[in-house]
């Protein structure tokens, strides 16, 4: 996936997570996040959890916060739909939630099925009370993660830093 994208934004974004005190990264991968996830795995001080379903993310992040740990959720926009019910925990407990989300269905999408799941993500995030930070340019990613982490952990809000496929690149298909 995302063969045509650069990954130059990854070190800065990772540093922003580290500076915010994030020590737990939970993900359902997207090709555009391959280097970010690899970076998490390379860091012995970052605990990684490969989720079987994005719906696990809000509950894992809430539990971690309850215990004093800051986490980040790294998922595709497709998975936002899976989270709908569990965002209720985030909202009712006013838990911080830092989500880094790839926006499928944006900028050069070639798979129509991804248009649907990408398009329903933002309304669901809005219903969940998320502060949405959409990023179209690679040079803005690190600052967005840094700012998003501040709002998530210091203002105790759910925040989605949404990277469009203009940043991540779109999956290429034959035909």
């Amino acid at each position: 996936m995302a063969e045509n994208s650069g990954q130059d934004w990854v070190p800065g974004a990772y540093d922003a997570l580290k500076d915010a005190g994030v020590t737990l990264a939970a993900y359902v991968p997207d090709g555009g996040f391959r280097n970010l996830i690899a970076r998490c795995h390379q860091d012995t001080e970052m605990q990684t959890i490969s989720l079987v379903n994005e719906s696990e993310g809000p509950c894992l992040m809430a539990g971690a916060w309850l215990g004093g740990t800051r986490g980040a959720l790294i998922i595709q926009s497709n998975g936002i739909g899976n989270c709908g019910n569990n965002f209720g925990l985030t909202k009712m407990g006013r838990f911080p939630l830092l989500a880094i989300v790839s926006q499928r269905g944006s900028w050069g999408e070639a798979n129509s099925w991804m248009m649907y799941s990408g398009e329903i993500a933002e309304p669901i995030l809005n219903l969940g009370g998320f502060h949405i930070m959409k990023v179209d340019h690679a040079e803005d990613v690190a600052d967005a993660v840094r700012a998003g982490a501040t709002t998530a952990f210091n203002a105790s809000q759910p925040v989605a830093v949404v990277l469009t496929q203009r940043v991540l690149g779109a999956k290429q298909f034959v035909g």
Partner: protein
Amino acid sequence: MADKSSNQRLDRRKIVKQIIGDQDDMLVISGLGGAGFDVTDARGDHDLNFCMHGAMGGGPMMGLGVAIAQPDRRVVVVMGEGDFIMGSHSLMTVAAAKPDNLAIVVLDNEVYAETGAQKTVTASGIDLAGMAAAAGFTVARTIIEKFEIDEASELARTASGPVFLCFKISDGASQQVAKTRDGVLMKLRFRQALLGHE
């Protein structure tokens, strides 16, 4: 051999009380419905209880998050089977994470007791402990008989996890007990009791 799907007799209140009742340092997450009443009955509206009232199925993941954050504390998740099965895929996630301080206690009455006693899939013989064992839980048991409760409770409290215990309990809804449903309050008091003022 006992029929696991029909021999329902254990008292949920006694089981939960035996596991968490005198464990003031234990970090307890309850699922929604009756489990929250059981937990509150066992040790009151305790600072280190977080009783979920939604996010059905999310208890094991919330417990995993606490267990990761607090590796030196015992974390116990108590939930009904109707709640648990909605997030039963998390058996895989928890087993892969291998938290040795986490126990999941499922109270299985084989019905959705809160909504009219419709049968859950465990009434058809689905073996939740077998699923947990297959996923790689270090302890995975179904508890049917009263004489098994003492040993199982000790496993919930002390065995190297992840531990999964499915207690076959009497049917009927869990009697209500007054408890807070305010998520922000539960979060703040839990963190304050655990972490102090930050």
